[in-house]
Each structure stands twice: as structure tokens, then as C-alpha cells.
């Protein structure tokens, strides 16, 4: 078997993977390789890339649907959408930028295979919620499809969601079809300064409980504000709590006003206009405040109200800088490098408060030594192993990428 391959279509992918299964040759699946340094290191004899399969194959703006081959770059997709006044609702964050990779190079199949979503996820759902259909090749070399190009489809088992977030361990998606939405006419942001985490999350959750369709709810600790690219905000030198409203201009004005009435009790409220808002939320999408160093970064998903408790508990064990998104339900925590990147303590904290933690950035030897993805409960692990075997009985696809033993 050749060590590096770029099948040109799913038939060739099928042959390559069937042969790998027959010879029990583990393969690393890649797209543009922007997330190669995320997850557990893979020990594979060959690399099979989707890169030769690119291009938008269907775009119907009036039906809010697009299809694209696996390795179509995210930037190309977003440019095509913007030309028709549309976008990907789930605002995928640029994980590549955490490990020094080039922004915007991620492939569309990679986005869905890792189920990455950004700030708007709190209102509109994750990548998996926008995936309508797939064509894929499993470890057996079988070419199969699931879902389709229509918005509503409950025909058969939902394999689209089954593959979303599976990090290339079940199958390679050769083509994806997804829902797109109109770009908002105007974006605005409300900012509160200097709030302690606990109060900040209370503000964000209160705002999410209003009828004003808040589409971003984030909080940055002062140490991370100091790393913002946006000069005006960086100079504030204190914690920033931000709420985003996106809508028609008139609605944005009205909703900002109503939201301010609700939140006035928490302190002075500043408004940020469209241009500054796009810059600020844009850099959150780039994870700007976590860039430029190689300290370990954890991505913690927890009930929003528990976010500050999780961070406080972690901070009792180690130095920790936190960026809260999803009104507190997503914590990006940067900690000081140690042999296990704090895994033992962080997982203990998570066990108390609920949720799960993934080690997104760490040296390869650390990622090889600790559980990068949250260890599963026994019952879920048994099901997950069987699921892996159903798609990939020889265990050739990205073996060990998510879990050490399957």
C-alpha cells in the first residue's frame, strides 16, 4: 500500500479502504490537515486524504441548501454563500489557529466530522444540526448515503448525525449537504465591563431567557481580554461580557433597547456597532485570545450555570484563564503545561458539575498519555465500540484518534 494517497472520487476511496481492511492496514484520514494536532496521535501506516474531492455541487439559495465535496475549503463555501447573502448558521470556530495552522483552510467535511460550532450555536444549534445529507465510505469500503437535500427527512436511521463528531473514525464523508441561512442585515453587541464570572454568566443566561433572540453570549476574563486584537476592547483592561443581536436594523435597535432595560441593574452597558461587532465576534471565531502560545487548552461543555463553578474549581488546582461562550455552557480553559495538562483534576471537577472536557491543544506526548476526549461511561463505551465495529470492523480508520483502544 502506498503511504500517501489522494483518491479522486468515492469509488477510489472505496477500493483503498476495502484494501486497507483486507490487509488490516490502519489509515489516517485527513482533509487539509488543519486539525492534525488535535486528538490523540494516530499510529497509521498510510495517510488517505480527501483533498482531491472538492467543489460545490449544489446551491439553491431559495431553498437554503448547499452540497459540496469533502475537501471543499470552508472559505470557498463561505464566499459562495456571502455572494448570495447567506452563511453557515453555526459559525464554525477555527481550531487550526490554536496550533499555528492557517485559518480558513479547514475542509467542509472536516467541519462536520468534528462537529465544530461557534458562538451562534447557543441559539441555532451545532454543525450536526445543519447537516442534511451525506455520501460516505466506511471502513469496509461500502459507499452509502443518508439523509438528502430536503429540510425535513426522517427516513431511516439518521447516519448523518451518527457521523457528525466522529473524527473520521467511522467513515469518510465524500459529500455533505447542509442547511444555510440568510446573513443578518445588522449586527450589534452589548458590552458590560468588569463583572466577576459568576455574575457575568447570570447576565448571559438572563439575556438568553428574553424574547430578543440573543445570538452570542460570551464572557472573557481580564487575562484574555489583554490578548484581544480589537484595540478598543483590549484597552479596557477588565473582564468583558458580550451579547450579540443580529436582525434587520430596526429590530436590532429595538431589541438592544429592550435588552438594556433588562440588564441595567448589572452595571453600565456599552453598545458596539455593526463593524466593531463583526470584528469582535469574528476574532472569537478565530479563538484569537488562545492563540500565540502553546499552553494546554481544554474545551469544556457543561450546563451554562455551572460554567463559573467549573472554572473556579479548576482554578483551585491550577492557573487557568477562561473564555466562556454559549452563555457559560462552553468554557475554553487555558492552563499551565504539566505532564497531564491538568487532566486528572479537570476530569474530577467535571464529574462533580456535569458535562465533559476535551483537551484541544497539548504536546503530542501529553495527548498520547492522557484521555484527550472525555472517557465514556461503561454502557456508552460498549455501544460506541460496537458502533465503531459496525462501520469499521477491522478498526483501520483513524485508530485511537478518539479513544485509546478503539
Amino acid at each position, binding site marked *: 500500500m502506498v503511504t500517501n494517497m489522494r483518491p479522486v472520487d468515492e469509488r477510489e476511496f472505496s477500493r483503498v479502504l476495502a484494501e486497507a481492511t483486507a490487509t488490516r492496514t490502519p489509515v489516517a484520514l485527513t482533509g487539509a490537515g488543519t486539525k492534525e494536532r488535535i486528538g490523540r496521535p494516530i499510529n497509521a501506516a498510510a495517510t488517505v486524504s480527501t483533498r482531491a474531492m472538492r467543489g460545490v455541487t449544489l446551491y439553491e439559495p431559495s431553498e437554503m441548501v448547499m452540497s459540496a465535496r469533502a475537501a471543499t475549503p470552508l472559505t470557498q463555501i463561505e464566499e459562495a454563500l456571502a455572494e448570495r447573502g447567506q452563511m453557515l448558521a453555526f459559525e464554525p470556530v477555527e481550531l487550526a489557529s490554536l496550533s499555528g495552522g492557517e485559518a480558513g483552510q479547514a475542509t467542509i467535511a472536516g467541519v462536520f466530522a468534528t462537529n465544530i460550532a461557534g458562538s451562534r450555536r447557543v441559539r441555532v444549534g451545532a454543525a450536526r444540526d445543519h447537516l442534511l445529507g451525506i455520501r460516505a465510505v466506511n471502513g469496509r469500503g461500502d459507499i452509502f448515503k443518508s439523509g438528502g437535500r430536503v429540510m425535513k427527512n426522517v427516513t431511516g436511521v439518521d447516519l448523518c448525525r451518527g457521523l*457528525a463528531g466522529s473524527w473520521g473514525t467511522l467513515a469518510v464523508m465524500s459529500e455533505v449537504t447542509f442547511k444555510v441561512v440568510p446573513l443578518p442585515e445588522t449586527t450589534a453587541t452589548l458590552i458590560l465591563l468588569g463583572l466577576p464570572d459568576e455574575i457575568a454568566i447570570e447576565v448571559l443566561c438572563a439575556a438568553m431567557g428574553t424574547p430578543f433572540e440573543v445570538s452570542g453570549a460570551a464572557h472573557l476574563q481580564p487575562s484574555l481580554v489583554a490578548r484581544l486584537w480589537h484595540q478598543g476592547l483590549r484597552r479596557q483592561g477588565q473582564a468583558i461580557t458580550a451579547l450579540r443581536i443580529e436582525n434587520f436594523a430596526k429590530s436590532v435597535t429595538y431589541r438592544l433597547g429592550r435588552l438594556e432595560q433588562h440588564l441595567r441593574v448589572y452595571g453600565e452597558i456599552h453598545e458596539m456597532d455593526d463593524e466593531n461587532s463583526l470584528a469582535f465576534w469574528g476574532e472569537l471565531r478565530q479563538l484569537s485570545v488562545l492563540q500565540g502560545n502553546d499552553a494546554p487548552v481544554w474545551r469544556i461543555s457543561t450546563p451554562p450555570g455551572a460554567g463559573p463553578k467549573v472554572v473556579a474549581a479548576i482554578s483551585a488546582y491550577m492557573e487557568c484563564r477562561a473564555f466562556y461562550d454559549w452563555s457559560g455552557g*462552553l468554557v475554553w480553559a487555558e492552563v499551565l503545561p504539566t505532564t497531564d495538562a491538568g487532566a486528572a483534576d479537570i476530569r474530577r471537577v467535571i464529574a462533580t458539575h456535569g458535562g465533559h472536557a476535551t483537551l484541544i491543544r497539548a504536546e503530542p506526548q501529553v495527548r498520547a498519555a492522557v484521555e484527550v476526549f*472525555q472517557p465514556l461511561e461503561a454502557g456508552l463505551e460498549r455501544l460506541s465500540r460496537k458502533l465503531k465495529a459496525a462501520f469499521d470492523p477491522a478498526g483501520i480508520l483513524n485508530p485511537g484518534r478518539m479513544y485509546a483502544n478503539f
Partner: protein
Amino acid sequence: MASVALPQPDRAIVSRRDAIAEDLRRLVGPQSAVISDEDGRRAYETDALTAYRQLPLAVVLPSTTEEISRVLRYCHQHGIKVVARGAGTSLSGGALPAADAVVVAVTRMNRVIEIDYMNRVARVQVGITNLGISEAVKAQDFFYAPDPSSQLACTLAGNIGMNSGGAHCLKYGVTTNNVLGLKMVLMDGEIIEIGGAHLDAPGYDLLGLVIGSEGQFGIVTEATVRILRSAEGARPMLLGFDSSEIAGQCVSAIIGAGIIPVAIEFMDRPAIHVCEAFAKAGYPMDVEALLIIEVEGSEEEMTDLLNVITELAKPFRPKTLRISQSAEQSAAIWKGRKSAFGAIGRISDYYCMDGTIPLGKLGEVLVAITHICDRAGLRVANIFHAGDGNLHPLILYDSNNAQQAERAEQAGNEILQLCVASGGCLTGEHGVGIEKRDLMRVQFTETDLLAQMRIKTVFDPKWLLNSAKVFPLEGREAALEAA
């Protein structure tokens, strides 16, 4: 009608009914019930797809997850099939019993366990009705978003089984987009918890696989669902057109202009007339196609949006353009739509289809549906969710006329094949059930089906759960070999 073949029941199991029922009674507490007498079982012989009827082996009405675990472990040990059931409102026969299967109906498990407004989630037992969740959080102006027409009766259990949608999912998504966590019992009795109050569950997306698995993967007993703050207001408008095709073009123009109303519902002339007679909603009687378009927001926002939609609609020369002027009018407009199936049921038996098509194909598909039904000598009324292309043609027939019933089923099959050929699918929200089982090969290849059946085998290796449904009977062996 009822041409889909049911598997031959296992006589040995049926003959042991009394002994099995006795065993089951020992497994559940005094709050729960086991029904084995014929009259009692009769109440469970069908669901909303009434053409199919089967008396179940026995019925268990459990009160706890642990009881369901004991019942499933027992059935697993003895190779007895199980059919999970909510309120029995499935339009695809998803809850149709089998003569050799125990029905486990979760309707007694209908409590709200916890409401958490800060985290915007509610934890409930799944026997609660869909509307029951919204009722429980209404005082705080919150609601649970998916809203199938049967929401007064249908359970969350069934919604999870079928990944149900509703009129407002254009904006708010369907069940799978609104459920964050599940507690479920696997066929061998193991109780597992997936996800929780956090937004993303870790590992493989088991939630995504289980939701919509039509009771074939396990029995879900509790769920953590997202609750949302209600909009400040909601207002529908009515747009009547000279043809269905023009109505469809108008929908495309609205969405293409970047407006996503919270709902866009469509009715054709026969549907309008029946619904108006029933609900007195003030629908126009002189149009071929009617759109109900609803927007949300403050008074001013709704007025602005409806004005924009009005402008976008003008080039399509609507014959009627009327904005609801009061809460009463809005309620009447929705009552007409939501009671459409019931209203049509009062004048005729009907066979309700549920295919989805790309919106751009709307005009040609509706013309073709009319031709199919004309050829069958049957009337059809079309009602559907236009924003997402989910069609509900109701084929009218007389269930006492066997020949007509057969023609209705045949016409329905042709319509679904048309939906798939147009780039759509067999079912948008009702599920495959028994009804569309043998049409699965129209949409899927053998390899596609095998990939799905292998997942069924992962969760239920002996294929005991609701196993007459979803997958064509022939060709299942390969999937079983993978176990």
C-alpha cells in the same frame, strides 16, 4: 388497504400468553399494570394508521425506568418481541402491535422532573404529551418548540421515536435539534444515559442515532429538552393564489429574500374548503392555494415584517392578502390548519402521505399528485409545510370499499416514489413505520440499508424491538450476521 405483510407470529410465544403475563406482573409494582385479557388488549390494537390492526400479546403500563428494565431483560431472555408505545398517534403504524409482542406503553410516566430556567432545559418523563411540556413552562413565557399537529395527544416518547417536526420547525428545528439528553433502557435491560443539560454530548452522537429510530434501539424513559423563551408576539397572514405553482414561487421569493418566517403552511382548494367548514377561520374560498405565513416579534417588528412579505408577494398577484387583526383571528387561522386532519376525517377516510420535496419542484409535483389521484379515481387534499417542502397529501377513500382502499394505498405509494424521484424523501416527519417499510428500497440502495441495519443490530442484536417495521423483511440476514 394494509398490503404490507406482517411477519408470522411465533405460535409458541402466543400460546404462552397467560404464563408470560403472570411473569410480567411479578416484574412491575402495584402502580403499574399488565393487560392480557382480550378486551383490554383491544384498546391497543392499532394507532392512527387504522388500516393495520393486530392484537398484542400483552400490554405493560410501567411507572418506572427500573420496571421497564426488568420487563425488557425478561423479554430479552425469553426471545419475546417488544413494541414501545406512547399515545398511539403514529400515522405510519409505528406503534402497531404484533401478536407475539409485548406492548410497553409509557403513558403513565408523564411527570415533569425538573424545570431549569437558567439553563433553559426541562427534564421530563417521556409519557408527557408534547403540549404538556409547553404548558408546564407557560407561566414563565417559555415553550417547547417542536409542535406536531397532534401535540395535544402525542407523547414526547413518540416524538423522540419519530423525530417529529411540526408547523414551526422552519425556525426552531425538529425533535433532534431540541433534545439534549436521554435516559433509555436497552433491550437487555441495561439503563444508559446519553447527554444531559449541556449542549453537546461527548463521543459519538448516540442521541442523533436514537432520536428517530422508531422504537427500534431501546425504550427512552426520560429526556432533557431545550425550552425557549416565547417571542413577544406572533401573527399570521393569509395569502391566496390562483395556482399552487404561483404560491410555491412566492414561498421561494420570500425565503430567497432572506426572510425566514416562523411558519409557512400551504393548503389547496379542497383542503381550504373542508377546514373552513370546520373551523370558520375566515379562509378565502375562491383561491386555488392558500399560504398561512406567521411572523414573530414585537408589534412593530411584526408589522414591518408582514409589510416586507406583502411587498415580496405582490408580483405573484395574490387574490387574497389578509393580516390577522386580533388574537382571536390568529387562533382561528391556526385552529383551521391544526385541525385539518380531523376536519377531513369527518367527511371521509383518508390516507395521509408525508413525503418531502425540494421547494423548487413544488408546482410540478402537485400537478403530478393530482394526475395520480385522478387516475385512481380518488380525491386528494393537499396540506403541507411549504417552508421546508414537507407535503401532506390526504388521499380520500372509503374504508368500507376494499378496492378503493387498495387504490388509495397504491396512489400513496406512487406519490412517495414521485417525491424521491424529485430529489426528496419518503417521510419528512411521520416516520417509516409499517406503512413505508417496503418502499425503503425506492430511496435507499442495499448498501445504504445495510449501513442502517447494522446500527439497529448494535443496539438490539436479537432484533426484538419493533422489528416488523422500517426495514424490508427480506435482506435482514446480512445485518444480523454482523452482530
